[in-house]
């Protein structure tokens, strides 16, 4: 991502992420907890990986601010054998 696109994102008040493999725009200054709230997800039922690192401490999610270009994976348990 180029510097100019980061600046324009910032100016437009958005951070652009890759969320579960797709482009996702979140308001600037959002935290991971804000992202979950906007998706109507309960942190207790999902696991979040940010840029390859699992966010184990659910209490910390409100303190982790999203950065432009972040790769976020949100996973949960589904049926399987």
């Amino acid at each position, binding site marked *: 991502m180029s510097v100019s696109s980061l600046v324009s994102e910032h100016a437009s008040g958005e951070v652009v992420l890759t969320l579960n493999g797709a482009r996702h725009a979140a308001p600037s200054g959002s935290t991971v907890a804000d992202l979950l709230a906007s998706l109507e997800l309960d942190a207790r039922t999902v696991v979040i990986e940010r840029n390859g690192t699992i966010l184990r401490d659910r209490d910390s999610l409100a303190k982790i601010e999203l950065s432009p270009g972040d790769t976020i994976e949100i996973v949960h348990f*589904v049926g399987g054998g």
Partner: protein
Amino acid sequence: MAHADVISPATLSDPQPFAIAGHEFRSRLMVGTGKYASNEQMIDAIEASGAEVVTVAVRRVDLDRSKDEAILHHLDPDRYFLLANTAGCYNASEAIRYARLARAAGFNEWVKLEVIGDQQTLLPDTEGLLEATKTLVGEGFKVLAYTNDDLITALKLEDAGAVAVMPLASPIGSGLGMLNPYAIRTIKQRLSVPVIVDAGVGTASDACIVMEQGVDGILMNTGIAAAQDPVRMAVAMRAAVESGRNAYLAGRMPRREVAVPSSPTTGMLGS
């Protein structure tokens, strides 16, 4: 024998309770949660199976909400022991990543480790499996390793610290039953950790024959979920696993290729 003294299955205790890594489980039948027509049917079938250990997979949340896939909306984690798998992983690092994500869900540090080597047969990549087992054991995971029916791989997995080894009866989802009873028996005889046959059981008689080999348990999914009536098949599988276990403990009669009469040969009329 007085009526009250009649032996019921409940009074015949198993001399060796089913335990993995020191954790005792009430059922030798473990079941998967995939491929059911509905979540209600899945819950009913699991309930009917009597299973305590149920497997789940780790997948991305569907952010479009087109499907309600979250298993924990339906399955009470206080009632069942959730065993996450790494199904769909084709190399060690992918499987390790999925195992770590599963552990972060916060239920336990157990994983049913699958490293698949081939899309058509879903046979395991034993090299990757062994590598992932070593790494995850080093990170404190309790690894139950899905493998083929090869003794040498099973021994290596045990050496690497797997708490259970899970040889297949036949390929995943095939319903072909146990293809190599000799190999399964040999693995059971040679390993100290529990041997749980995973995959390939198609109907109740398959499950019974697997348990008659003396293995510690069975994990199945499609055999129940793909039956015409999964809840009834779950009942059948439960009984088959118990029957097979009891038959193994009882010790079958020797096979003979000539008949031996069951009734007295003396005292016949006219003799």
